[in-house]
């Protein structure tokens, strides 16, 4: 069964990608599974300078999901390039660098540095856990356009723009990204959320609100992928709450060319293998010849 997909000329041997921030730089999981199983690995969010991230607590569990507020802790782009990238390159998988700027210039700078070193860049315009940049930019279609355009101008690799679900109409962001020349969009980043410890009356996340991921957000993500699929022609990378192959199939039918899996890695590090096998068996059972035939193939 042919699981190969193509995003802006980059061939992924299968459509399952490790979601940014849930897989580090691959090092840790490589001790547990063969990380070449992934079609691509999206790195932890990278910034120009090293960041120590947000204070504790950064994580809490809610009904069918988790809220996190890591706040882009990362060693900075230089350390990434020198210490992490060489390791990642040792695997037979594509590398997507997830970049985060606090100004347009930072996005441009990161793109210049990384463009020739990685297979693709995912421009994170949707991090809910930083005060500036991230989602603050990403909610405004004009800003999405502006940053995407600036990044594209200097990019020597394809650009994926990652969108936030915390907006009235995500298709406006998708359209803005497409117009600005994005090669693909990815969605959804986490949903802004909050939980309170009723014993202490304190928020369970120190920063008060954080990003909700996991099964709880899946129906929101599927809806948004479907909405965007109707509005843009560039490939969509879908994610949000995928726990198994059935969830993954929903995203393809809704219009995703590839998918990312995040939270499930924490629970089941072998999810990538199970999801790939499940997709394959499904395609065979349903008489499809390739995963591409499934993309957006919805019966309305």
């Amino acid at each position, binding site marked *: 069964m042919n699981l190969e997909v193509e995003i802006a000329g980059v061939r992924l041997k299968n459509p399952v990608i490790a979601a940014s*921030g*849930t*897989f*580090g730089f691959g*090092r*840790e*999981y490589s*001790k*547990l599974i063969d990380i070449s199983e992934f079609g691509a690995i999206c790195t*932890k969010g990278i910034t120009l300078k*090293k960041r*120590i*991230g947000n*204070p*504790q*607590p*950064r*994580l*809490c*569990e809610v*009904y*069918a*999901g*988790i809220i*996190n507020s*890591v706040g882009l*802790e990362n060693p900075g782009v230089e350390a990434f390039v020198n210490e992490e990238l060489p390791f990642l390159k040792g695997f037979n998988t594509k590398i997507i660098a997830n970049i985060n700027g606090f100004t347009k210039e930072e996005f441009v700078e990161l793109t210049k540095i990384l463009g020739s070193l990685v297979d693709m860049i995912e421009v994170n315009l949707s991090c809910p856990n930083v005060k500036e940049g991230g989602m603050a930019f990403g909610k405004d279609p004009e800003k999405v356009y502006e940053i995407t355009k600036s990044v594209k101008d200097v990019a020597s690799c394809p650009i994926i723009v990652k969108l936030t679900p915390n907006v009235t109409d995500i298709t406006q962001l998708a359209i803005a990204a497409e117009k600005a020349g994005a090669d693909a969009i990815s969605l959804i980043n986490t949903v802004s959320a909050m939980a309170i410890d009723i014993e202490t009356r304190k928020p369970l996340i120190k920063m008060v609100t954080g990003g909700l991921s*996991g*099964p709880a957000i899946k129906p929101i993500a599927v809806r948004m992928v479907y909405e965007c699929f109707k509005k843009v022609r560039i490939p969509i990378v879908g994610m949000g709450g995928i*726990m198994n192959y059935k969830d993954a199939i929903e995203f393809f039918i809704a219009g995703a060319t590839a998918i990312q899996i995040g*939270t499930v*890695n*924490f*629970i*089941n*590090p*072998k999810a990538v293998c199970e999801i790939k096998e499940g997709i394959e068996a499904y395609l065979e059972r349903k008489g499809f010849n390739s995963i591409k035939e499934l993309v957006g193939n919805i019966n309305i």
Partner: protein
Amino acid sequence: MKLLEVKIEENVMIANNIFLLSFESEYLAENFKPGNFVNILIDKESIYPLLRRPFSISFVEGKRVYIGYKVVGKGTKLLSQKSKGEAIDVLGPLGNSFLTDTFDGKVAVIGGGVGIFPLVGLCKELKNRGNKVDVFLGFRSIKSMFLVERFNSICNNTLIATDDGSSGYKGSVVELFKANFSKEKYKIVFCCGPKPMLKAIKNLNLPVKCYASLEEKMACGIGACLCCSIKGKGDKMYHVCSDGPVFDIMEVEIE
């Protein structure tokens, strides 16, 4: 570390809401070092609880691995309802371990609440290496005590503190330890327990090295998600799951 599917051998209540669970795993038993923990997926199909739950390996006997835990929420409740023969999915061994050398003098080990569990394996190993070990154990009251007999049989001295004085010293286990410290001239201190206890120990500014096993909420348990970060000196960030859970108590911020 490995993903292991193990079968529960025993899962019994040893005090009010406190359980001791064991399973066989040659791999874990062989690779275990005191301080290591495992990340347990209690129910594969469950979406609530969703994440794995981290538990220290308490001790090992032959191929048998022991975990002790307190029922505090949804996950531990589910775990307590599992019976012999049921399977659980265990990821481990994870994290670093306590320094277990042969020290030139007495060793003090301090535990409070469920923080006592990993200290069994630690004390065993310290004794194996020929150390003299005093263990200080803090409990709410005599009714919530567990594993005391076991420590008695391992350590040179087992000193108890209870909040209500129903057994041993009345007051905090840190006070009890402090009272003994100058007298006994411990060469090194190991501890595990609730944050206020660890903070109090840190505040003693001991003239010897002190290592503490810490807890933070964890998603991956292996250093990938950065949910469990704590601050070291300057802007150094440590990850409790992979750089820890054992840290030099003076090197990390305990809030």
